[in-house]
Each structure stands twice: as C-alpha cells, then as structure tokens.
C-alpha cells in the first residue's frame, strides 16, 4: 500500500506557486494605485474608426480622435459662434470667391509648414470626387482653392455661397506631403493640440499633447480612445474607474455613472413624410399626424427628460433661421381625427414606418411609440426595421417611385447652426426630400444667394412658417446627448457634439 510522501520538490514548487500568486496580486493592485493619478484620460467609443484621416470620415467615433489632431481655418466657440482658428480673418472679395488670411508660423506635427499652399491643397483634396469622402454633403458649391501668397488663400465657389464660412469650420487642413502617403489614414498628421502616437488595433488609439501647439497648451497631456463595443461594458468600466468618458448613455443608465452631463444637442428626431404618396398629399393629413403624437410624454418618459419637443423646425434658439413664433404642435388627437375626416380619411389609412436598427438612441422604441399613437387616430402604422445600409438605400428612392417609403424615422443633425443645412430634405429636388413646395424652394434659393445674414435669417424664418402649414415631417424632439464622466474628469461639453480634450481637466485630489 502506497502512502503519498510529498517529495521535497513538490513542497518547494507548491510554496513557490503560492508566493508567486500572492506577489502577483500585490503587484496588480499596487500598479493600479500608482498608475491612477498619472493615467491618461480614456474615452470609450463603440466602433473602431476605419481610418484616422480626418477628411475622409464624418462619424462621431472617428472624430473623437481626429477632431483633436486636426483643425480647420475657422472654428466654433463653446456658444456655437464662428471664430477664427487657422485663419485670422476672411472676407468675400467677389460673388464666387472668399479670401482667407492665414495665421503665421504654424507647423504640422511632422514639421511641414502650414501655409497657403497647404490650405489650398487641403480644399482641393477633399472635394476631389476620386477621394470619396463621407463628408460630401458638407462641401456643396465649393469649386476649389488656390494660394495667393504664403499666408493667403482664395476659395472659389460655384455661384453665390453664403454658407462657405460655415463649411470652412469643418474643412480640415492636412499637410500636403504626408497626406499623399497611402498610410496617412493610420498615421495622421495635423496642426491640432494633440499628436497621434499609436493605434493598437481593436484596442485603443493613443494621443499625446502637442508641445509646440500654436494655441493654448492643453491641460491633459495624454489621452486614449478605447474601443469598447458594448454599452454595458462601457458603463462598467466607467464605474470601475478604468475609463473617464462615455458618450451617448441611455437615459436609464445616466444615474449609473459617477457623474453625468446632459446637453441639448444639435440633433433633431423626426418622422419624415413621403408627401408624394396619395395618402399624404393633403397637408391636413400631415398636420393631423403632428397633432396625434404626444411629444411631451415622449420626452418625459422614453427619454426621461433628456430631450424636449422641438419647435416644429429643425433648429433651436440661437441658430440662424430660427423662427421664435413657431411652437411645437400641441397634442390634440380629437382635432387630428377631425382633420383626417375633412381630408376624406375618416376611416383612417395604412402606412409603413421604416426605422434603422441600432443607429439612433431608442429609435426602435420611439417608432413603436409613434405607431401606437397614430393608431389612436385611425392611422394604422406597421413598423419595419432595417439594417443601416438598407435603410439608407431606401431613403434614396425617389418619392414618386412605387417602392419609396411612406414614413421614415430619423435624426437630423445641424452642426452648422444654420437652416441651410436642411436644404436637401425640404426642396423639390433635394436628395433626401420627399416634398415639393414651390414657395419653399423659392425662399431657399434666394437665401443661399443672399450675403446679408439678417435678410437670410428672415427668409429661413418664413420657410419654417410655410412648412408649419405644409409639414415635411412629424417634428419630434431636440435630443440631448448624455455623457458619463469619471469623478476626476472636469469638462463642459460643447453645443455641437465635438469632444475637445483640450478643454478637459483632471481634478487634483
């Protein structure tokens, strides 16, 4: 019969393992403690950017990184007003040309000088059809640019384009030589307050402060953009102190964050009509649908007050073209039913509402909510969900085609703070438009040609007054963006959705 005598070797190895185990625990925790104070700021995003070339992409996840590396000729301040950035000033010298005076002695992160040639090159690069930027809808009517001298550049427009300054707040400046390189997307170089350090694929993108930045040096010296696809994981990491900032929290999750800030965004949710369809040709029908939806309850319950009914226009106070006399359509189902009867739809109608999956916060739920409310007044709505690309394709089918959509849920963003941004949705041949109102077309056309901003403002106000009687959508909410912050992060988000790390500070304990 054998009894097991623990051999000397096994005792030693067991003890060694035990101590190694304890040691690693200690190391783990001490590392954690030491690193906490000097840890870089970490911002979570849910999708990895496909490229860091700031000119190529427009989605928010990419801009969290590229928005801190690159800059444009003009910028906006925290209140949304246009201010100078890489350009000191500008003026329009004739109908088709704007002249920008550039700031002197600025270098790109790789040493290339920022000058007229770089600026002109940046403009020409992004508008080139072969470049295939996702920002093309922001670049309409820009024809080209040429350097006049070392610190002056002219931008040419296709006819009168009064919103060129607005467009230039988002036209990113890139270094001519580096941008020609195929690897520019994984090795971005800009003029901004942060330099690109490394891209750990699938994990994070690391950036460090630009010590030779021309403007105010940022307080946070290092930050990373970490890819965490799952919302739960993001919150968990925030709660555990592993990351510092989470974007786009669900309203119910806001209270789970150590700190949260909810800001009204430049995002307007709506249900777009296809006014070319027989049922919705009559404006009374569309007004009825606006009256049938209880937007106040929508904001208070689904969005837990992180959002408010928009004033029946895709603008908020402070934006150019905002009409202060227009208020949200009230919730009046009785009147809605009456209008429907007057229009000849006393027995209601059957429509399909299309919405994208997983794209807009609570989009699916809002669609179902609206469908239920419309049913109350006799409009039987079926909700159909689509994958994002399929949804976009559907939206582009011309309104007069048989397979065009009836109703479509979406969000419209207006980071231009300017009514002209929505032109493609409300003009007769706008690419996303499903409505044709001749007077609106006339007004929009006049407005884009008017250089006098006050006159333009009046014209847009009238556009919205007109649309109030001939609505192009069910106007839902101006949505909030909810940010979750770690205790140590001090930051006030901007009114547009740009995440500028240069304005962040770490609270010292």
């Amino acid at each position, binding site marked *: 019969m054998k009894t097991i005598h623990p051999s000397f070797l096994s005792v030693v190895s067991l003890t060694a393992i035990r101590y190694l185990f304890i040691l690693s625990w200690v190391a*783990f925790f001490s590392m954690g403690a030491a690193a906490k104070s000097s840890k870089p700021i970490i911002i979570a995003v849910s999708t*990895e950017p*496909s*490229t860091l070339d700031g000119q190529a992409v427009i989605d928010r996840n990419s801009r969290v990184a590229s928005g801190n590396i690159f800059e444009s000729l003009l910028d906006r301040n925290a209140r949304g007003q246009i201010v100078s950035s890489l350009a000191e000033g500008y003026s329009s010298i004739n109908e088709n040309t704007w002249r920008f005076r550039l700031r002197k002695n600025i270098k790109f992160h790789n040493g290339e000088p920022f000058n007229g040639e770089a600026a002109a090159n940046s403009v020409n690069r992004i508008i080139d059809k072969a470049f*295939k930027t996702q920002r093309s809808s922001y670049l309409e009517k820009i024809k080209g640019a040429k350097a006049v001298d070392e610190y002056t550049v002219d931008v040419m427009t296709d006819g009168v384009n009064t919103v060129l300054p607005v467009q230039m707040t988002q036209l990113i400046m890139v270094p001519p030589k580096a941008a020609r390189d195929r690897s520019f*997307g994984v090795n971005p170089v800009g003029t901004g307050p942060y330099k690109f350090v490394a891209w750990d*694929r*699938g994990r994070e993108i690391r950036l460090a402060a630009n010590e030779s930045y021309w403007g105010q040096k940022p307080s946070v010296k290092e930050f990373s953009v970490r890819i*965490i*696809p*799952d919302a*739960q*994981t993001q*919150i*968990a*990491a925030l709660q*555990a102190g*592993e990351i510092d900032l989470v974007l786009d929290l669900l309203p119910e999750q806001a209270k789970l964050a150590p700190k949260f800030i909810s800001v009204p965004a430049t995002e307007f949710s709506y249900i777009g009509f296809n006014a070319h369809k027989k049922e919705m040709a009559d404006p009374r029908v569309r007004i009825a649908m606006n009256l049938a939806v209880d937007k106040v309850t929508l904001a208070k319950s689904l969005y837990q007050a992180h959002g408010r009914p928009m004033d029946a226009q895709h603008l908020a106070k402070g934006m150019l073209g905002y009409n202060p006399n227009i208020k949200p359509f009230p919730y009046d189902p009785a009147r809605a039913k009456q209008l429907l009867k007057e229009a000849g739809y006393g027995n209601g109608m059957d429509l399909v509402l299309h919405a994208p999956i*997983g794209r807009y916060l609570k989009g699916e739920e809002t669609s179902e909510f609206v469908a239920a409310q419309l049913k109350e007044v006799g409009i039987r709505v079926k909700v159909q969900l689509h*994958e994002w*690309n399929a949804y*976009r*394709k559907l939206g*582009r089918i011309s309104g007069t085609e048989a397979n065009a959509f009836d109703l479509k849920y979406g969000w419209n963003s207006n980071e231009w703070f300017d009514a002209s941004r929505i032109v493609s949705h409300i003009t007769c041949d706008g690419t996303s438009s499903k409505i044709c109102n001749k007077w609106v077309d006339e007004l929009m056309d006049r407005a884009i040609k008017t250089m006098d901003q006050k006159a333009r403002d009046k014209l847009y106000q009238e556009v919205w007054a007109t649309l109030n009687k001939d609505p192009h959508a069910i106007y839902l909410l101006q949505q909030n963006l909810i940010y979750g912050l770690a205790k140590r992060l001090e930051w006030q988000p901007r009114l547009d959705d740009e995440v500028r790390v240069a304005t962040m500070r770490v609270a010292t304990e």
Partner: protein
Amino acid sequence: MNYGSLPAFTLRRLRDGLVVLFLVTLIIFVLGHVVGDPAEVMAPVDASEQEIARIRQQLGLDRPFGEQFVSYFGSLVQGDFGQSLWQDRPALTVVNEALPATVLLTVVGLILAGLGGSFLGMLAGARPESRLDQGANLLSIVALSVPNFWLGLLLIVIFAVELRLVPTSGFTGWQSLILPAGTLGMIHGARIFQLVRSATFEEITKPYALVARSKGLPERFILWKHILRNTAVIMATTVGWEYVRMMGGAAFAIEVVFAWPGIGQLMIQAASRQDFPVLQAAVIVAGAFVIVTNAAVDLFYRYLDTRIHPG
C-alpha cells in the same frame, strides 16, 4: 466505424477531416459568392447599376463558377482571405487578432468544466440515488436546459450588478474572466458530469470493485485508483467533445453576452456590418478548430482503445 489498424485509421480520419474542411469552404463560397452578391454589398450606398457591374467585373464575379472557386480556394490555402470591408486590412489578420481571447476563454472554461464535471461525476456515480447524486443530476439537467447566454446574463445580474464582485463585461484583467469562463464551465461541465457519472456507476457495479469493497479496503482508495483509470478515457473524450461544442458556436453567444473580444463577437460584428471576408475567415478558422479537435479526439479514443484492447 472500424477503420482497421491504427496507422490506416489515422490516415483515413485525417483525410475525412480535410474533406469536411473542404466542404465547409465550398458551402461558404457558394453561399457568399453565388447566392449573395458581394458586388452589391461592397458598392457604396448610392452606386448605380453600372458601378455595381464594374465592381463585379473587378472582383472577377462574372467568371464561371468553377474558375472562381478554384482561385478562391487557392488564395485560402495561401492564407489570403480577402480584405475586410470594414477595416481595410486582411481579413485573416483581423481574425487572428481575435483568436487569443477566444482560446483563453474556452481553455479556462474547459478546465473548469472538466475538473468540476469529472469530480462531481465520480462522487455522484459512486453514491447512486444519494441526495448528492439526485441533486447534482437535477442541476445538470437544468444547466443543459437553459440557454447558455441567458445563464451568463443571470450571473451578470447577480454577481456583477447586484453584488458588484466582478466586472459586468469586457476583457479587462483576470477578474473579467471569472463569469464567462464560469458560465461555460457550468454548462459544459454538466454534460461531462452526466457521462462521468454513468461511467463511474458502471465501474462501481463491476466485479473487481465489488470484490475490492468486500475485502474491506477503504473506498476512497478503490475510487481514485481503479475507477479513475477506467473512466479516464470517457473523461478525456467527453472533454474533447465539449471543446468541439464550444468552438462550434456555444462559446460565441457567451462572448457576445460578456463583450469578450474573441472570434464569436467578431463574427457577429462582421455579420451586422455585412463584412463578408471577415465573416468567412472567422467561420472557416473556427470551423477548422472544430474539425481538428474532432479528429484529434477520434484519434485519441482509437489510440486508447487499441491500448486497452490490443489487436
């Protein structure tokens, strides 16, 4: 299936494995290229019919089926699975980056399942109809009846949300491994438990065990030495089968629930983005794992069989 002698068996089994792998790639190819339309998927949203046709020509999709498959298979063998549509990198690279996380999760889960299931299985089998046996057996049936992703969610609610003992999801250090590996361990351990239990019971009723008991030798001695040896085969092969099950899809739902950055989560993300090259690569790589493990377990079983029953 009687394949004859061991070397002959090995060869034939390996051949079978390759055949299955080939079939899988064929099916994937047929589904992806013939049934689906890669040109339309890759084209930008507002592309015209002519642009789509041009892309089709560029990709060589207008060539005859046989020719396409040959060139496709040829590139696969060389390791070229195409470019990811979403990340603009080789699809195989994307998959390889996700692989270690999956391997870590499944191996740890398998160890937990194997150890827990075997240990409990032997205890239960040695004391049939006891409270331990009945309780553990019922628990195993329950574990195999519930959806594994649901069990994961339940554990998250209890241990991460309410008790705050571990992180809810993601791969953020060793604590985040506990719940996902534990979930896999419970469910796959349940099946291992059942098979080891019945094997142990069979051993207990065999003459040598009864004789040994009647001789009055301490029970534990018999249990651990003889029964262990005889049930080791069952344990090993069952563990192998459970790994096959894990890599065949069970582990991937767990990955999604716990946001574990492995192949499973990659597959679902690629599917939602219609990134076919990456999806194909992930399915083929995971499939290869399954097929190889399957063949390995078969060979191992056969090898042990010839050892125990020579000739």
